[in-house]
């Protein structure tokens, strides 16, 4: 039973506070994916858990044991780095066996473990090679192998797939997911990639400038983003966000003077309250009776296309339409009530309907 708990974790480099209090609990065997913009402190968080940096404040508990002050070598974790960090002077076998040798395992046991891991990852034929004789994908696998032979309490992944080409990334993504499900090792996985974020983890943590802003299942984060930052960050292309005013007793939003009904939902804010209306590009509907938007750019993506429309006042809107949809200089669109998200414009926080 190896869970992970972070309590009030903070980290400053000099005067810069990079992590501003992270609280987190992972159940045994859970995989948590961490996403956030570049520089928001994802790697720093991972390095704190690994023990490569020491926190300014807060505690790290693995398996209910406080490991905050412990050296990385005493934490029983494994980490897969973005650049793999294989030992260049050792063969694939020795790369994987290194940690086991340090633990003083008998030779036969080391051999058995390395063999098991390498056949799991399809590395059997490569055991005698040096890292420089491997392709990027193979190196990635060796890095994975080095992590799993150790049978650690915790896996840490720092953007492990970002140096691979698109096709290999899809394949390795599937493999990592299968491996993690099979081995059921508690894992933290940092990524930039939307698809990895949505598909890999049991839960998703969105970070923004050193603060965790939403921690939920990927579906929940996608369907009910906690604030405008998450709404704009998760989903590609990003959710459309339009400034509006709440009206008619909290049942409509007026955008540019056009009232958009919110269905049978009602929001407990006074009329005239400034809000941000959110709708994903795939939910915007073409509607001859709707409001009109001048088309600026059309991007063809194969099976579908993205239409970027903009108005003179600076408001912009992106639509995702099936390829071949009839278009002219302007599109007329409407916003289906069931697909609308509402956020408080002042705080950016999500507003929930009262009924």
């Amino acid at each position, binding site marked *: 039973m190896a869970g992970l708990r972070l309590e009030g974790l903070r980290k400053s480099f000099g005067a810069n506070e990079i992590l501003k209090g992270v609280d987190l609990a992972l159940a045994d065997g859970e995989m948590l994916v961490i996403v956030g913009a570049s520089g928001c402190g994802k790697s720093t968080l991972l390095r704190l858990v690994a023990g490569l940096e020491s926190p300014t404040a807060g505690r790290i508990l693995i398996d209910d044991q406080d490991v905050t002050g412990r050296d*990385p*070598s005493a934490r029983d974790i494994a980490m897969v780095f973005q650049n793999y960090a*294989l030992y260049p*002077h050792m063969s694939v076998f020795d790369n994987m066996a290194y940690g086991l040798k340090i633990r003083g395992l008998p030779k036969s046991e080391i051999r058995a473990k390395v063999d098991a891991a390498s056949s799991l990852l399809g590395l059997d034929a490569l055991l005698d090679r040096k890292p420089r004789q491997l392709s990027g994908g193979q190196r990635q696998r060796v890095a994975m192998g*080095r992590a799993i032979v150790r049978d650690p309490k915790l896996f840490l992944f720092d953007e492990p797939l970002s140096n691979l080409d698109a096709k290999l990334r899809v394949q390795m993504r599937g493999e990592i997911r299968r491996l993690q499900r099979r081995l059921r090792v508690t894992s933290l996985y940092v990524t930039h990639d939307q698809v990895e974020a949505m598909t890999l983890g049991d839960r998703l943590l969105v970070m923004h400038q050193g603060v965790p802003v939403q921690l939920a299942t990927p579906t929940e984060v996608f369907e009910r983003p906690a604030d405008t930052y998450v709404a704009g960050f998760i989903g590609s292309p990003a959710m459309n966000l339009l400034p509006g005013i709440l009206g008619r007793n909290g049942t409509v939003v007026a955008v540019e003077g056009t009232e958009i009904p919110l269905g049978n939902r009602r929001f407990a804010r006074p009329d005239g309250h400034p809000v941000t209306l959110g709708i994903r590009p795939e939910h915007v509907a073409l509607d001859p009776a709707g409001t009109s938007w001048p088309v600026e750019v059309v991007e063809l993506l194969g099976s579908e296309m993205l239409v970027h429309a903009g108005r003179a006042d600076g408001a912009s809107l992106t639509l995702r339409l099936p390829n071949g949809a009839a278009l002219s200089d302007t599109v007329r669109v409407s916003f289906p009530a069931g697909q609308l998200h509402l956020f408080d414009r002042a705080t950016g926080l999500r507003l929930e309907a009262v009924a």
Partner: protein
Amino acid sequence: MERRTLFPGRLLPALLILPQLALTVVFFLWPALQAIKSSLEREDAFGTSTEFVGLENFADLFSDPLYVAAIGRTALFCVCVTALAMGVALLLAVLADTEIRGRAFYRTMLIWPYAVAPAMAAVLWVLMVHPQIGLVGAWLNRIGVAWDYKLDGTQAMALVIVAAAWKQVSYNFIFFLAGLQAIPKTIVEAARIDGSRGFHRFRTIVLPLLMPTVYFLLVVDLVYAAFDTFATVYAVNGGGPGQSTQTLVLKVYLDGVVNANIGSSSAQSVVLMAGVIVLCAVQFRYLGRKAVT
């Protein structure tokens, strides 16, 4: 990645390397040929006539017990200087590579000895270890150690080894530090996470990745100790007491210039030249092998 600049024609490239070639011819090739020539000749006692004697000078050299002893002494000197200079430099570089306060100051201080002229360095050491006026030397005698490098050959040898090594530590330090900093941090971090600590991590990860630097410095230091320590050794004790610090380079000078035995001295310099060529060949081989194995 190698960058090559191509100059057009033949005249310009020839012109550009001419100064260097001229220097090499005047200050190396010509004297070298001269040395080879006189190593095959013998002068009479008054320097009035010379006769061609073939390899006789060389034969005499290697049957001279003093020369054979000098070879052994030089080998010992080289090995000790190299080991000491590299060991100390590596230790200092490892310390300087860690995150410490005042790191820049510390590094600058370590690089300074390289800028001190060899004879100056020797004088500095002499002033420090002189049996009567030297800080360390006088102190040793006061606590009952019979320290006098002017009488005791072993002590003299130890002193020239330390003085020569001290000069070379800075050079080695710069290369070791650069080598250490070229090792990707994540590799060392991966080893930490794998459970490796302290000296074990140094031995299994850092040192193997530093081997190209080690090979390079090994050759450079051997060449330095064998051929480039004349000023230091000569300034400390002139090769004495007796012959106890007479290395091969010193002997060339003492036999040729001081004792005017040109034939033998030339033969000795030809032997030394052969030594330099061998070491340089080794160095080129290792420099050619840039990749980590």
